């Protein structure tokens, strides 16, 4: 699971009002190179919850993202590179995503988060 996915997901258990961001429990993190596409990054930038991305990338051991961001930074190649790396190249291969409200763990195995709810959570 890349952090772009983490940035989109929340816990949708019935009754949970704030299921975002999911806390990451990392058991195995890998890095996978992805082709650098500035257009895609610029396209995505405004849709990303920055704080959640910064936090998540630190959990996975990458701390090069600035605390705050604004669109003017997209002109900097260095910024784009670190944004690219955090968003697309860090993978949570094994671990879990934890609902911030209930503590329910959504397992991540072989890089695939399992967001399916139990019968009594629907």
């Amino acid at each position, binding site marked *: 699971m890349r952090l*772009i996915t983490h940035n989109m997901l929340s816990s949708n258990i019935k009754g949970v009002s704030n299921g975002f961001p999911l806390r990451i429990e990392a058991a195995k993190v890998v890095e996978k190179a992805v082709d650098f596409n500035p*257009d895609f990054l610029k396209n995505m930038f405004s849709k990303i*919850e920055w704080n959640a991305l910064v936090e998540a990338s630190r959990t996975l051991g990458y701390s090069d993202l600035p605390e705050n961001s604004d669109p003017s930074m997209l002109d900097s190649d260095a910024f784009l590179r670190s944004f690219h790396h955090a968003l697309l190249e860090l993978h949570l291969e094994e671990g879990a995503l934890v609902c911030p409200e209930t503590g329910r763990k959504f397992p991540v195995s072989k890089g695939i988060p399992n967001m399916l709810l139990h019968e009594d959570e629907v």
Partner: protein
Amino acid sequence: MWYLCVFYHRLLEFRKPEFESLAGLFDDDYTVEWRLPDGYHPDSPFHFVNLPSEELARSIANRSILLKGIYELWGEGCNFEELEEAISKYPEDRKLPYLSHGSTFKITVDSFGKVFSSHEQSDRLQKLSFIPFKGRVNLRNPDHKFCLIDNNDYGSGNGLPPIVERRIFFGREIATSHRKVVRKYQLKSRKYLGPTAMDAEMAFLMANQAQVKSGKLVYDPFVGTGSILISAAHFGATTMGADIDIRVVRDGRGPDCNVWSNFEQYGLPPPVALLRADNNLPPWRSGLKEVLDAIICDPPYGVRAGGRKSGGRKLLKGTVDPYTVPEEKRRDHIPSTAPYSLAECVHDLLDVAGRMLVMGGRLVYFYPVVAKDEEEAVVFPCHPCFEVIAKCEQILSYRYSRVLVTMVKVRAYREEMEIAGRMKRLDLKENHLKWMEEAGSLHSAVFSPDMQATTTPAGDEKCSQKPKYRGKYV
């Protein structure tokens, strides 16, 4: 300027919409204008199209799956005398640059529905000697390609009504199709397949309908083995997929035969996200809106594979109380799922698409249609955010077809739509059994023994029910 389009004679209803979608992709404020050659049937593969530039024509052709070639028409006529007259009247400045000394050229002789022998071909080429070609012939790698199309007799077996009058076209080839990908990505050489993997030709048509290109984010909520996303990735899009069946997306048939390996096989970038999620209860955070550029999918509609959604036992209303998972079993609990009716599935799809697509983003999906005895209008799903751009029918059997629906988001997703969506969802839940019966009736309409076929003697009757021209492979 008007160009001659020659299509493949397949998937008849898909041809113009594909062309128009591609025109929109390369030039978004251009409306395509069509014209039929004199006396031609609308389903014939020959059409004239008005385009602002040769460059646009080339861009479209180079991505098209159903366009065979696009030509600058130099002349047409009922016989070679008329053709000669038309070509000699065609402006010199449009012809001379392609006839010059030192250039190389090739002329292809073609027809529709029949093959010319080499003798017939050279006979026709001789008749073109009035064109002042100064270059040399090069059949391997010519600078300029020309095409002579002589339609006299469609032959039989293509289903079109007989040709009224002989028509000969001569033109310069601008570009040919991108059809080679159909072979490259054909399912029979793909490693990981599921029972409903989308065939390569259709997957590429879907990607073209969705105007996929580099830098765009494309999502398939019923990703399965990834067959649709592969075409989107081929055109440079960033892809994302979800499926409710974790074995399909996570495990596949082992470490070297899964969704990831399918992308690897073709050297395509893998999806940026694959997850197990339920289209009925999508796990997206509430603030996430207008993030996807296109959603392309083949929803499960219960004919070859039925959909599932979470919350199984609850739906068996009154018979069993909602199942509570005991604390000690939570960790490895495998939640049960319930069948997912087509009506609910499509409703959820439109609701998610309304929220998640950017303005102008496209939703492309298949919808099943049962052939009715009378011309009863089929009711297609609709949503206030969307306008329908194209509906292309693919006939699967004489009782059943599927329609590729292309919708474009024209209005923002507002709160009242969200509320209306929620109400509708409750209603669908309440009447779950009724909708499931409906899905069951689709299944039986497709698979039940055919009473009519056993009582009526011949195939003629069947054809009259659905007056469409289906060539051998259409």
